[in-house]
């Protein structure tokens, strides 16, 4: 059916663009010589991996109704609980991504302080210059 093919194509666009982000940010970490550019590429890289994890936890549309976030909004009678477990999105990748975002932020904060000390010592943040000057 044409509508189903269109839906699948849009989801594949999401996956392909995540793959493209992954490749471009990896190129940015390895081949760009400035320190701050490497830090920016590192944040893009870790965000792309978090998006992969959340995409795995998504759920398909059953009977034309959208999946719900994993939050109960009414008192849990047994029908409401059954409906909830039938429609809600997987909560476990979201909890793991929460931890991953916090740790990524802590690493970037430390890298910013390290970059500042590096500049104070070598007067430049171009890593090829630092490799030439080293010591």
């Amino acid at each position, binding site marked *: 059916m044409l509508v189903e*093919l269109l839906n*699948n*194509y849009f*989801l*594949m*666009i999401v*996956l*392909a*663009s995540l*793959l*493209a982000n992954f490749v471009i940010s990896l190129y940015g970490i390895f081949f760009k010589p400035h320190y701050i550019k490497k830090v920016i590429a590192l944040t893009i890289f870790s965000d792309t991996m978090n998006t992969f994890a959340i*995409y795995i*936890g*998504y*759920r*398909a549309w*059953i009977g034309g109704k959208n999946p719900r*976030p*994993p*939050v*109960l*909004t009414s008192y*849990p009678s*047994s029908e409401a*609980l059954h409906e*909830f*477990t039938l429609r*809600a*999105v*997987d*909560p*476990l990748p*979201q*909890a793991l991504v*929460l*931890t991953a975002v*916090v*740790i990524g*932020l*802590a*690493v970037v*904060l*430390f890298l*910013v*302080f*390290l970059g*500042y*000390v590096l*500049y*104070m010592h070598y*007067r430049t943040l171009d890593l090829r210059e630092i490799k030439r000057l080293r010591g």
Partner: protein
Amino acid sequence: MQRAVEVIVIMSLVLAIALLLLLASEYLLPGESVRLLASFYLYTTYNPSLPNYTVNSPEAVTAIVWDYRGLDTLFETAVFYLALIAGLALARRLYEEGLREDVDLSKSGLSLIVKTVTRLTSPMIIAVGASIALHGHLTPGGGFQGGATIAVAPMILIVVFSTLFLIKHGVTSDRMLVIRSLGLIGIGLTAILALLMGLVIGKFAYVFQNMPKLNSPIGVPATIGNILISGTLWFFNLFEMFAVAAGFVIAFIILMLVKGGEK
């Protein structure tokens, strides 16, 4: 012009790879049912008919973060603390935090319009952040979300006014360090709350326990009066909010105070 051509090439590459992936799409689409572990978490997160397994919190993600997988969050808080200490140790002699008396604060900073708008909106930012943190067991939110939102307000104040404005009004890095340490002590005490209650009464209890379990019949109460607080979850969110917000404020103040390089 050359940039536009490169952008068009990359977009068409992405669309073509998506067309190729369409052939294998039956392995890459989201499924109709979740995994067995996830359905267990969804079924028992707020289920008064299963008193030994439930968490009494309608928000499944906060229950996983602070109850089912509480030890992960404890170590994540420790990692954040270690990264902050490492960053501050790198910059330890490169700044001075004295209170300079000769700076006229009414002439520094941005224009009057921006200052007035900032005076109006930064209490609002702090109030919204506190609401996100304290309702973390009922709606999406929690300690870290609220703490990060509250940390945006001092950053705006530093940019619009100046760092000396913040220090003159009592927000120094030593006081923020005290608040952060109090937040971390609070998290540690809440983690052993059920154990302390068990020691006082004389029954068996686990460390990091929230609700009564099979072998230990006492637990932190789930409601106070008529209000649902889900046991230790509310206290964890409160202390985590203080710890995270104070940690960010320390990092900003020290990063703004180190001496800039001469060009």
